[in-house]
């Protein structure tokens, strides 16, 4: 069973539906027991980094989540949920993240050429930098996925498994041991996205 961590941020309808479409059983979980009972964890999120990080802590789920991850349970963060995996975020001030992957979530405005629209919204191609990553096994460089974000994760290249070119290479997916993250929305990325979710389920 895959636990979709519900800490009051965002709409979980599409995530639930997309996992159902790949034949996976999910439960929306908002307590520590639910996290412990799950085989794998999904950390969703939309909105601003600071608010979401605070809500995750106040929900009391951050600590048990970290415990489960330290025991080796696979975790995937999606969109803002992926950004929360990092050390800190610089959206409306500086905020602490879960620090599961070293790195900082910064505005893309600082790295892309002037004139490009922000947010980075729409379908963009993945360039795989770690094609051996098991959750990317159905993905080829050039496959498009759906992005909506104004901030990106700046981290060491060894944690980056794919980037998307938006005038600069933006971190699209990351992995550190059993922690994965997708900046894009696999649940809104058609067959390519469903393939990634299926691969995560089959880990």
């Amino acid at each position, binding site marked *: 069973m895959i636990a979709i961590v519900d800490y009051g941020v965002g709409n979980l309808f*599409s995530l639930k539906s997309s996992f159902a479409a790949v034949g996976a059983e999910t439960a929306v979980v908002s307590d520590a027991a639910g996290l412990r009972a799950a085989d794998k964890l999904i950390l969703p999120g939309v909105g601003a980094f600071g608010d979401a990080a605070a809500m995750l802590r106040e929900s009391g789920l951050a600590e048990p989540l970290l415990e489960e991850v330290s025991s080796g349970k696979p975790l995937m963060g999606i969109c803002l949920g992926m950004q929360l995996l990092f050390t800190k975020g610089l959206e409306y001030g500086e905020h602490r993240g879960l620090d599961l992957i070293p790195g900082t979530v910064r505005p893309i405005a600082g790295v892309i050429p002037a004139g490009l*629209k922000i*947010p980075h919204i729409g379908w963009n191609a993945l360039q795989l930098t770690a094609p051996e990553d098991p959750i990317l096994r159905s993905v080829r460089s050039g496959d498009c996925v759906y992005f909506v974000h104004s901030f990106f994760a700046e981290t060491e290249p060894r944690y980056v498994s794919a980037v998307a070119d938006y005038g600069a290479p933006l971190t699209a997916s990351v992995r550190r041991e059993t922690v994965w993250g997708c900046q894009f929305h696999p*649940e*809104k990325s*058609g067959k390519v996205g*469903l393939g990634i979710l299926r691969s995560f389920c089959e880990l």
Partner: protein
Amino acid sequence: MITKRIIPCLDVRDGRVVKGVNFQGLNDVSDPVALAEFYTENGADELVFYDITASAEGRKLFTEVLTRTAERVFIPLTVGGGINTVEDFDRVLKCGADKVSVNSGAIRRPELIREAAKKYGDQCVVLSADIKRVDGEFRVFARGGRDDTGIEAIGWIRRGVALGAGELVINSIDTDGVKRGFDLELLERVCEAVSVPVIASGGAGRAEDFIELFETLPGVDAGLAASIFHFGEVPIPALKKLLAEHGILVRN
């Protein structure tokens, strides 16, 4: 880089697609769920559902259809029609919509844009505007293009973006249904005025119209159409192949 999006638009009344016709391999072309799945399999980058129902019963059918679609279609879904309050946003987002488009509701009460953007984020709020030339200026029309509001369109769009609209659907009443191409003059004015994504609507009659749109106005992010897709006049896979041959980036 970001690809140009091709977006079919489905008008839904009482749970059925209006003007649904003739698709090979599709038995019930007026079933929104079946049509949405068909488009998703055939290269659509996003879908827009407009609820053109007037009754409460029709609205209920619409949300049921939306829910069933969102359970099976895994590309972005935008919903419009009858959105007047933040509660209306909530209603369709809970059924699986990703973005909500506002039109007459925002004209009546522009604060709706700010309230919804604050609650759900700018990326969730699409401002849709029906625009027509009147007395030498672009005017915003309300109620499905029936009422001249007297509001100058470019100023309205600027205001909408300032209030928090994260994307625009620009529908030209002058070119809508004429099938001689998008309203490039209007769209150019819009692209100059704002920096959020712009979706062009109204006037597509053939694949070449999309080439002209994206080649002339690189600032336009997407082309939206209904009948030419529904009637099979322009199949989306063929359209995308043609766009790619002209060097326009599309999702394959």
